[in-house]
């Protein structure tokens, strides 16, 4: 029914510490969006709503700022990747690496990123927004968006690689 509720919820879940806090943020954001919708003059209502979600998240207590900068947690659960470990294409280290990563671990690596890196990554990769739209939503210069996005991706690739090396 409401077309952008999933987008609002997804961003809130990635910015907030827990599910309850995310729900509060989405509710708050939707109330604001409904009140101010008449004044909306942009072309992309989804980006506009995400900006409201983002602002609500940042003024909330439950914002997950992400503590560790380089999360290489020993959190891989036993048995989680065993099925995937039987990879035949050992010649291609990248394919092997990717196969060995459980979805859950990728999730944890991203969740542990500092929020200023996590945020552009989510907006770009999951919402597929342009640099310009991300810059508007996060109130950040576009060059900063690009370098943060780059750092986020590099950290992700390298932490995955580092935990692979163990």
């Amino acid at each position: 029914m409401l077309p952008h509720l999933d987008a609002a919820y997804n961003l809130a879940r990635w910015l907030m510490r827990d599910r309850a806090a995310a729900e509060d943020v989405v509710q708050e954001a939707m109330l604001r969006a409904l009140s101010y919708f008449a004044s909306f003059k942009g072309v992309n209502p989804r980006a506009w709503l995400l900006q409201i979600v983002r602002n609500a998240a940042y003024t909330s207590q439950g914002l997950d700022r992400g503590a560790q900068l380089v999360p290489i947690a020993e959190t891989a659960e036993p048995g989680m990747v065993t099925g995937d470990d039987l990879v035949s294409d050992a010649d291609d280290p990248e394919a092997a690496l990717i196969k060995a990563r459980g979805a859950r671990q990728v999730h944890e690596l991203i969740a542990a990123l500092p929020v200023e890196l996590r945020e552009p990554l989510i907006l770009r990769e999951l919402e597929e927004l342009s640099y310009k739209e991300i810059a508007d939503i996060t109130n950040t210069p576009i060059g900063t968006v690009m370098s943060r996005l780059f750092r986020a991706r590099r950290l992700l690739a390298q932490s995955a690689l580092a935990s692979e090396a163990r």
Partner: protein
Amino acid sequence: MSRMPECDKVLLVQAELDGELDAAAAAALAAHRADCPVCQAATAELAQARALIERGQLYQKMPQEVRRRLTAQLAAARPRASPPRLRVVRQWWRSAASFGLGATCAAAVALLVVLPRGPDLAEQIVAGHIRALQPGHLADVTSTDQHTVKPWFDGRVDFAPPVKDLAAARFPLSGGRLDYAGNRPVAALVYQRDKHIIDLFTWPGDAGLNAPEIGQRQGYNFVHWSQDGMVLWAVSDLEASQLREFAEAWRRSP
């Protein structure tokens, strides 16, 4: 963590991955990367990050039960938010709000109606065509073989563009490139008729146009239509009648 030497072009490598580079900048980057190990490494690293993300299934959709609760809360909260003095729109709002859920539905419709719409798509398409006509910008992949051109788009756009060989209709394929129109990366296929270049821009969608519609901008003719879930725009300096012939040949071709 390994320390890599830096290159100020790595952000362009990333921009290419994100579909934010135009054809000219992408070509310049390709030339640079051939000699730059830093950018080669960055390309691999970024591809790896993206593969991890795709594997991660990270999108967190709103659970049904949360959706129900939220919708009810919004409906209940709405009347209180109404101001005492009402203008026509607000009056409408309040009557909608008195239906509870109805208010939320109305807002949803409102959010839906304001769909992203560029200033003028035809203008963007013609501008893309003119840009591409500048020397060296026409094609990122040069081939008359549809089986070379089509796979080239894999991983460059998030859809598989239909690529047809129309040589039999005297519109031979000559290549393809990435372009940008309507706020999204699109596939551009390059065809020729004699010395004339035809750009065919395509992306997924349905403009609701089954029959081709002809138009003109800045001396260039264009024709656009929808077919098999794709929007198609052909632009050229060909005469309108020949461009229409191109569109018909494309539409009939399997």
